[in-house]
């Protein structure tokens, strides 16, 4: 498929100088200003920033749910012009359909993309097993815990084999205990699947723990104000967070965010 298209980029995701302005009745709101970033294939990249920094807008742009007002986005060599099957997504809430069983829920993308479900069933079983949901295929979402529902949502995002997985604060609605468990599981699922993953979060430690690279964004208008690389060996454990590298990085990112918010607030006064 990619051979038929002119390769625009070698990266799994490339955001090129993107800006986004929302027009309202009385003012233009600048959500993103000249955002550029690249994500390599198989990489785990987190985007952190204060609320209202345009993280979720950026995700909606990558998914093709909204259109950029400047610049461009390339996913797996294809310029994003609208929704595509190149990207899978996980939202804050699992958004499972209550009238479908877990199996039918994770198969939903195949229904929509009209992909042969019989051929994909073996792969889906494998994904469910990987997510620890084997044996729950015939259950309904309301019979599962919040953490299990979110894992089903992750399987659903992977089922059509997208080239990139976008996650928008996927654990924000979970309690602290479940959140820790599922964070470890996400690391494992990512390592086993070898997918490119873009993880949007407002938790610095979650970003540091999970990511190969952390991109820091400023408050509105959203800009990239810092980038950190975390080469700590995997699989990582929570005790590793106490190590000088990891804890130091958390501190550095926090400083970076604080500085950008000061600069940002000055900018608005001018």
């Amino acid at each position, binding site marked *: 498929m990619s051979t038929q298209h002119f390769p625009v980029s070698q990266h799994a995701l490339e955001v090129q100088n993107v800006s986004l302005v929302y027009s309202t009745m009385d003012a233009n709101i600048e959500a993103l200003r000249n955002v550029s970033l690249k994500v390599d294939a198989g990489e785990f990249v987190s985007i952190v920033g204060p609320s209202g920094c345009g993280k979720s807008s950026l995700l909606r742009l990558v998914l093709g749910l909204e259109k950029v007002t400047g610049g461009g986005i390339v996913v797996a060599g294809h310029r994003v012009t609208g*929704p*595509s099957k190149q990207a899978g*997504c996980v939202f804050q809430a699992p958004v499972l359909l209550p*009238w479908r069983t877990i199996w039918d829920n994770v198969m939903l993308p195949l229904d*929509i993309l009209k992909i042969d479900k019989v051929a994909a069933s073996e792969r889906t079983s494998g994904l469910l097993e990987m997510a620890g949901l084997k044996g729950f295929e015939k259950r309904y979402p309301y019979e599962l815990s919040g953490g299990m529902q979110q894992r089903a949502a992750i399987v659903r995002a992977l089922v059509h084999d997208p080239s990139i997985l976008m996650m928008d604060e996927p654990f924000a609605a979970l309690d602290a205990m479940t959140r820790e468990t599922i964070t470890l599981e996400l690391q494992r699922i990512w390592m086993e699947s070898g997918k490119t993953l873009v993880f949007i979060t407002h938790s610095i430690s979650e970003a540091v723990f999970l990511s190969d690279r952390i991109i820091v964004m400023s408050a509105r208008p959203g800009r990239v104000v810092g980038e950190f690389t975390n080469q700590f060996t995997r699989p990582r454990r929570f005790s590793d967070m106490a190590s000088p590298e990891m804890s130091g990085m958390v501190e550095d990112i926090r400083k970076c965010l604080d500085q950008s918010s000061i600069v940002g607030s000055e900018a608005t006064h001018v």
Partner: protein
Amino acid sequence: MSEKVMPEIFRKTTTPVWMRTRALGIMFRIGETLLYFFALILIWHIAIRIFDVQSYVFPSPLDVGREFYNGISSGLYLQHFWVTMAAVLSGFTIGGLSGLLLGILITTFPIVERVLYPYIVALQTMPKVAIAPLMVVWFGFGIQSKIVLVAIACMFPILINTIAGIRASDSDRIALVRALGGSEWQILRYIRLPSALPYIFAGLNTGIVLSVISEIVGEFVGARMGIGVLILQANFSLNLARVFSLIAVLSITGILLSAALRFIERRVCFWSGKSTR
């Protein structure tokens, strides 16, 4: 021998404990309802006796029971009942389907709402009794005029609920389909319509009751057969016991139709009211 006895004892001691209490509970509740029902009948009977009310003014429960039995056993009631039911069910089906279809069209194409909706509301605000004679003029004394009347009457609540249900669909679920490049038709099929089902059933429940009412209104205005026709005839001959027994037939029909709908609803919308995010 002892091996055969063992499982028997085992079964007796384990399973029935909760079942017995639950079955007893249900039987107790049914018994309670029946007890009050018979108490009411008894008070009715005694009141008629004490005040010596003539049966052409207010019939005694025994007279009503006799008429009910005679009507059923002679086959007269059933013969008319099927005519009424046929009109109710076909009118309800036609009205229900058109309400559903119009609801989908109105929520999908704004132009349909702008053009059609005023007429639908106007049709609805018209009293059904007022248009019933028109229907008889246009569609005759046969079953057709009653079917049209029933369809018009039950369409509106189903339409309104379909619109409300489709509009209440969760935006995250729609975004999920949209992010995969899903079409509007797919959004309707996989998200909007299933989300709207509990609303649609609420509309169907209102619609079925309205169907029975408008069918009888239609039969009063002009018909050859049906329970409504029997009620009119019995009323003219001052056979109030028969009127009462026919009203009982209608009540039982209404209760059964509504219960059947609720049974289907529980099967189809089993997920409704259970929390999932």
